[in-house]
């Protein structure tokens, strides 16, 4: 449906004299996995924060249309509530809602998918970085948003944990059919995950690149490496 498409039109955000985001036009189709890459300070995080409602755009006219009713971010840090267990953190969104059918069952299902069943009763201070980030992902998935905004969620993790979580996200994406906007500074990660890559520079979209490589993708694939190099050349 046309109404499902997320449209950004004349989206601007400035901080003092610096333009953080300046996007004349952008369209995000539902149930797609779009990755946004760019150098530090290019506006990727600001764009996500604008879509999450954590920042207000400068422009007076309606610059974001088609935003799903339920949109939720996964931040770079887990941002777990220290006073809640893993299970409590995953079900945290319930406190802002008027109940959810079969919430307990849904939570245990997510714990199983995220391989956190054994850790359900632990507190955040007892978790490793990878586990904490999985809980953060679980919390967002439990909320069941149509659009998930992921802001470099795996950047602080080691290679093996990162790969594990990337595969988990892909599995969940295919299983739950969400729309995902994934910000990363790692071009290879973007190519492993996304259907489409937006290259950002100075707040604008410099390039919009569809990724036509079929799954499963491997980092060593020639086609992937070729795309990676051309994106790096664009960023340089």
């Amino acid at each position, binding site marked *: 449906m046309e109404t499902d498409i997320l449209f950004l039109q004349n989206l601007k955000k400035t901080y003092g004299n610096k333009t953080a985001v300046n996007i004349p036009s952008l369209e995000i189709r539902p149930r797609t996995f779009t990755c946004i890459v760019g150098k530090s300070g290019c506006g990727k995080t600001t764009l996500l924060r604008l879509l*999450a*409602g*954590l920042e207000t755009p400068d422009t007076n006219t309606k610059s974001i249309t088609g935003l799903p009713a*339920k*949109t*939720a*971010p996964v*931040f770079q*840090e887990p*941002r777990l*509530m*220290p*006073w*809640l267990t893993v299970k409590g953190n995953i079900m*945290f*969104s319930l*406190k*802002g*809602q008027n109940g959810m059918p079969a919430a307990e069952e849904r939570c245990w299902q997510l714990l199983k998918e995220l391989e956190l069943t054994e850790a359900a009763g*632990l*507190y*955040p*201070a*007892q978790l490793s970085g990878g586990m904490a980030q999985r809980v953060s992902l679980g919390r967002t998935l439990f*909320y069941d948003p149509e659009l998930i905004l992921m802001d470099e969620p795996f950047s602080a993790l080691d290679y093996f944990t990162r790969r594990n979580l990337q595969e988990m996200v892909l599995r969940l994406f295919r299983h739950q059919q969400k729309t995902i906007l994934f910000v990363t500074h790692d071009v290879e990660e973007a190519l492993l995950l996304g259907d489409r890559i937006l290259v950002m520079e100075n707040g604008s979209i410099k390039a919009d690149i569809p990724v036509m490589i079929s799954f499963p993708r491997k980092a060593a694939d020639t086609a992937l490496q070729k795309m990676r190099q051309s994106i790096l050349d664009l960023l340089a």
Partner: protein
Amino acid sequence: MKRFINGIIVPVILLLLWYAVTRMQIFNEYLLPSPGTVWEALTELATSGELAKHLSISLRRVFFGFLLAACTAIPLGIVCGRSRYFYTYCWFLLEFLRHVPPLAAIPLIILWAGIDEASKLTIIFLASFFPLFLNTISGIRNCEPKLIEVGLSLGFSKTQLIRHIQLPAALESIVTGLQLALGYSWRALIGAELIAASAGIGYLILDAEEMSRPDIVLAGMLCIGIIGSLLDWAFLHVLQRLIPWYQK
């Protein structure tokens, strides 16, 4: 267990030193009674029921004064912590009041509230109010903004943000404030009873001083230290139940 054993080594050494000094009669028995004399005084007070009577009066005062402080300081602290303008207009007054010890206000409190329970409760209230009030404000104001953003991104209303994020986040700071307030209220109580009381452990010490019974004075001081430590220990156990994630 190991921690407990390590902790009592120094007190045991001091006790032995005390015994040795009194045995060698370095000081006059009036200036420093022997451990045996103090122990006898303590058992005499315990068996006669006087110690229990005075302790229960003191503990009751602490309980009610502390409870009153908690019931006012915490809600007020939450409201002021959430207020943008509170610090702008009140920081100077707060700093001023924070540095005036309640014991300095005793003459005025006695003038206004008399020498009965009201004045003692007022002193305990003043001693315990500020640490708790300021810790509550600090807990509310220092709630991690990133956690608030999580709530906002999940569609929480303002009330839900306070109830489910700010208050639990402030709990550690509030509990620390409660622990401090408990210690201050116990110390302030003893001061208040030394000056204007007819019962209580502070009064017991003052009465013993007037009756030239330094053994009872020392026995009273030992009780104050032991009871104060027990109160703190008991509170820590309650704390561990209230905030089980704190140790983890």
